[in-house]
């Protein structure tokens, strides 16, 4: 770990100013950043600890939505009764991630900025355009079981590792960001960038931009998170599905579908949603929609199985939700 200075501002303005300095990095729960620093992948000159800021509240919004402070810990958010009642997909996604210990540390803001777990990103001796722009991508022809199949480029196939973000994406979350130029709101679907030729630029955030909150609109219908992984617990997703589904008279009136483990960003499955909206809520429709979403998949030999896996998991998740809807 490179030596660094440490500051802990107590108000947002000071945090933004400190974070805007060259070589500065915000520290939340530390579960990702400290690890990356130890591995030499992140090398900040200054660590700006934001955990002293007043951003740990979860508040109801007048419109029925929820405002979640950026410093709310994953475990607190997962246990929040409003989240469990209104946004079960979010609680389930949080609880399927990491471990009890890590969820106690990890913050919402930090989770949004979690970096990929591609093994070549972590191995300094390997070529990785995300870690070392222009060096190449050893994952393309290497071990890419964990890598993405949608939204990838020839420069990077790293997958976004977060579970929480997949649920938030399905819920149309909006991220509140305060930067040197003031406060702005970014739909979560627009926060993360696809790799293109610049995989090292992962979000639209500028230096000093501090995520202060995430807002959820009013909940619609029932929702669920299904995570598929190589171990029963404490493992990153091979594929995950966040879905919200409302059915009336056998027809889909509201559908939200997002995928994890298959794309460089939390992936909103718009094509599948469009195919499903207004149509029948049956197995064949679910499968057609899933297949359409995966039609553009660009696979490597090591992750080609994710097409079938994602398709089957989407179908299983939607079927489960539709059965629940029917039961209720």
């Amino acid at each position, binding site marked *: 770990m490179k030596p660094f200075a*440490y500051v802990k501002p107590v108000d947002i303005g000071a945090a933004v100013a400190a974070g805007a300095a060259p070589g500065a990095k915000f520290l939340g729960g530390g579960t990702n950043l400290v690890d990356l620093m130890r591995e030499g992948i992140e090398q900040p000159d200054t660590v700006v600890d934001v955990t002293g800021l007043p951003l740990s509240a979860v508040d109801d919004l007048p419109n029925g939505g929820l405002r979640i402070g950026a410093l709310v810990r994953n475990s607190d958010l997962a246990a929040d009764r409003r989240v469990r009642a209104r946004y079960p997909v979010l609680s389930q996604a949080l*609880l399927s991630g*990491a471990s009890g210990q890590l969820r106690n*540390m990890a913050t919402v803001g930090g989770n949004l900025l979690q970096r990929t777990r591609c093994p070549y990103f972590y191995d300094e001796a390997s070529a990785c355009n995300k870690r070392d722009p222009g060096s190449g991508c050893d994952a393309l022809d290497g071990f890419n079981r964990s890598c993405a199949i949608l939204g990838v480029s020839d420069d990077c196939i790293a997958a976004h590792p977060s579970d929480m973000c997949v649920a938030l994406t399905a819920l149309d979350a909006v991220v509140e960001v305060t930067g040197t130029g003031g406060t702005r709101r970014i739909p979560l679907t627009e926060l993360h960038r696809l790799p293109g030729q610049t995989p090292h630029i992962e979000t639209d955030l500028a230096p000093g931009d501090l995520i202060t909150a995430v807002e959820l609109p009013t909940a619609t219908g029932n929702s669920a998170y299904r995570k598929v992984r190589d171990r029963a617990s404490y493992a990153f997703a091979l594929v995950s599905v966040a879905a919200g589904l409302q059915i009336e008279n056998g027809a889909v009136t509201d559908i939200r579908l997002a995928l994890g483990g298959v794309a460089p960003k939390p992936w909103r499955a718009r094509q599948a949603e469009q195919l499903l909206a207004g149509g029948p809520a049956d197995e064949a429709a679910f499968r057609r929609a899933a297949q359409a979403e995966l039609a553009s998949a660009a696979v490597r030999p090591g992750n080609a199985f994710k097409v079938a896996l994602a398709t089957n998991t989407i179908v299983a998740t939607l079927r489960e939700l539709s059965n629940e809807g029917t039961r209720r």
Partner: protein
Amino acid sequence: MVDVEVSLRVDGTDHRLTVDTRTSVLDALRERLGNTSPKKGCDHGQCGACTVLLDGRRVNSCLALAVAHDGATVVTAAGLAPAGQLHPMQACFIRHDAFQCGYCTPGQIVSAVAMLAEAAAGWPSAVTADGAGRGGGAVVLDDDEIRERMSGNLCRCAAYANIVPAVAEMARR
């Protein structure tokens, strides 16, 4: 190298110490304070051997920077019970032979103690049935709940099938 002074209350004793900003809570405990109860298994947040209670919550102390926890209260497995005594969870682990080499064990035990409190507070897990504990009541810890909630602590000797009944015995109390 940037040195900073921090205060930590560890297992009931206050300490003032100088650390590198890079020093983790785990290394501060082990290398500076000589408290080797929390173990270093991976230094990555991937095994749980370093689990301590940090201000009352179970965390991976390898991923916590000491400088960021100035003034914190830390409880390790050595501080769960007074010197020379055993916390009931520790007694359960011995009775069920819920460990072999013992290296992951302090982390397992701290994790288990914290996990019971989390369940008592109604916190759900990935296997909690929808709605359980939502009303504020405790979550009932069956074997699958214990397995899931203890999965952040790897045991390579694979004493899991003894850890679960050890924790279950405590959960019943």
